[in-house]
């Protein structure tokens, strides 16, 4: 894929260097324009509206009033907000590395070419990605049942007593499991695709030098796919901070384990939809957006710095 086709021979004109992009002109907008127009409607406008909302407070009694930054001040002192943020940060710190590591190992195993039935592995591990989060959560919810679910079946069959996956101590891990299950294959494919385009000649050279497979992996393969790793990490960070579907569907099974402020997103949802606090909800969402952006940016910076 990296081999650029040779420049077409145009008589009388010397071909331009491949890397050079055209000089600045507005014609790019012909193509990016439609995307940006729709983007403005479904992203920019609601965000602007949210920011506007965050400066007001609408009460059941007393109506709407301008409150300046009071909502932001309230959020900074809101222990429920901070506890939800702490929870997703913990989730991020544990689930994302585990998931990406397993995905990376699986991708390396596929790429090594030493598996029996490689394409079966590749497509099978990827399949859970095609399962909607709603279906995945319903399904795992059924299986998590300690009485009549799969966990209960295992307890009965083996005469053991597995802890309840939906108890407050384990619920975060159980949700992590669902998310990991959904996205291992997806991340694996991203990594595998990146691995598969590393020029074979590099391996050959390394093998000639007698490099071990482990060395091959750490010295050549992983550095070569850093770009894919950074992108996958950023998407996972964003995904973790926006955690919503899985806890919201499991909530009906484990109401005492999953509070209305379990994740920031769930908190924002409860505030606006069950509490009618649209303004405060918008404030929380904006703060979360800013935090997510900062962290995603930091990941990107760090990833790129290593590269140079």
């Amino acid at each position, binding site marked *: 894929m990296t081999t650029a086709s040779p420049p077409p021979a145009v008589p009388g004109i010397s071909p331009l260097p491949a890397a050079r992009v055209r000089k600045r002109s507005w014609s790019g907008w012909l193509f990016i324009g439609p995307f940006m127009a729709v983007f403005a409607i479904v992203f920019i406008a609601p965000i602007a509206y949210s920011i506007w909302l965050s400066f007001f407070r609408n009460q059941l009694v*007393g109506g709407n009033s301008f409150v300046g930054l009071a909502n932001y001040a309230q959020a900074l002192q809101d222990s429920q907000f901070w506890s939800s943020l702490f929870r997703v940060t913990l989730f991020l710190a544990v689930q994302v590395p585990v998931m990406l590591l397993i995905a990376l190992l699986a991708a390396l195993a596929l790429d090594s070419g030493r598996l029996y039935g490689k394409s079966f592995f590749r497509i099978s591990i990827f399949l859970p990605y095609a399962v909607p989060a709603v279906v995945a959560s319903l399904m795992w919810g059924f299986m998590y049942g300690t009485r009549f679910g799969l966990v209960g079946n295992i307890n009965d069959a083996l005469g053991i007593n597995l802890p309840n996956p939906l108890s407050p101590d384990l619920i975060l891990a159980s949700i992590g499991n669902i998310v990991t299950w959904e996205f291992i294959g997806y991340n694996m494919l991203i990594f595998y695709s990146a691995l598969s385009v590393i020029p074979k000649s590099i391996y050959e050279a390394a093998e000639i030098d007698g490099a071990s497979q482990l060395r091959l992996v750490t010295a050549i393969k992983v550095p070569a796919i850093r770009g894919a790793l950074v992108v996958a990490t950023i998407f996972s960070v964003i995904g973790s901070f926006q955690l919503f579907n899985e806890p919201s569907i499991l909530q009906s099974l484990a109401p*005492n384990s999953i509070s209305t402020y379990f994740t920031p997103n769930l908190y924002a949802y409860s505030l606006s939809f069950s509490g009618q606090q649209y303004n405060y909800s918008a404030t929380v969402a904006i703060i979360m957006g800013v935090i997510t952006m900062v962290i995603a940016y930091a990941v990107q910076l760090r990833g790129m710095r290593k590269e140079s």
Partner: protein
Amino acid sequence: MKNTISLAVLRGSAIALTAALALTACGGGAGDNAGAANEEVSAEDVQAALEEGGDITIWSWEPTLDEVVESFEAEHPNVNVNLVNAGTGNDHYVALQNAVAAGSGVPDVVQLEYFSLPQFALAESVRDLSAYGAGDLQDTYNPGPWNSVQANGGIYGLPMDSGPMALYYNKEIFDKYGVEVPATWDEYVEAARALHEADPSVYIANDTGDAGLATSLIWQAGGQPYKVDGTDVTVNFTDEGSTKFAETWQQLLDEDLLAPITSWGDEWYQGLGNGTIATLATGAWMPATFSSGVAATAGKWRVAPLPQWQEGEPTSAENGGSALSITSASEKGALAYAFLEYANVGDGVQIRVDNGAFPATAATLESEDFLSDEFEYFGGQKANEVFAESAKSVPEGWSYLPFQAYANGIYNDTAGQAYVSDTTLKDGLEGWQEASIKYGSEQGFTVSK
């Protein structure tokens, strides 16, 4: 179109005006009927609206309304009723709040559970039906449901059904272990111990913290944790009734006598079906769910009066039940009211009862047909007798918060912790109280303890 307007103006009814406007499918008239809701609407106006016909939209998840709508349309060929299930419970309220906030897509008629009615009444999202002469219907209904539609000195809906509580129990399990069906809550705790000891897989009940059940049992115990006077609200879960409930339930929690299964999930249906959940204290609307959801155990379950907090006059409480209300945004108030009358006072009541609903109208509740109905699911028991008796013994003076839907939503954040940690239920209820007070204050209510 001009003709229609002048006709309506002549009739002198703002409601009919807006109805006629909408009938001609001209959206221009929307918004200037703000004052309409308070003006008198006579029975003739309602009749006229029926004859003229038109479309109305209803949001409800009540399954028995399907047939009511069919027969209503058959009787009034000009009327087209659009019955929409916009979600159940909270989803439904969210949708309604959103539609009201957006000022478009608001239905004409909505189902409101009694606990959520004050909230929408306060926000003026639904209409005071006094203007339609709903006050005359007082004696048509049992006092419990009738009180439930009163708010701010107005009548904000017509009761559709009611949920006088009873104790459903699995007779087979009680017989098998030779345990008496409890008549008081103390005996209930005893029975819980006996059953669980006889078979550790059997629990007297399931509970993971249910705001509706807790408030109903406190209601039965004579507690009044909520007092509401306009926007002055009191929340206090330390009164005698609340304490009684908390202390009794704490024993069940301490000894792990309640199955940690959340109601309405698949495990719950399994537990009701396989004998691991032996009783269920809930409203009279439950039989329909039993026969469809737990069909396998037909004949094993029975109905008993709710256990008592103290000897003497039997006391009960309401759990669930809902009303139909007319939204303020509706442009077809008269037609909507015609439907309300049909469904909740008129022929619709019997149609719904025939399909398993539990009515709120006194005449139906006292009719011989109704009382003598033998429930096959309950082994031929005349269960309605138990329910009707319960309906008569609901203590008066209970009120819900004008933000009860939200308060119920955070019950598990606070009181629910008693089910999974060392927090006591008493402390949990106080936590709930504080959280409710905080929310109420933020919303501009004057809240005290």
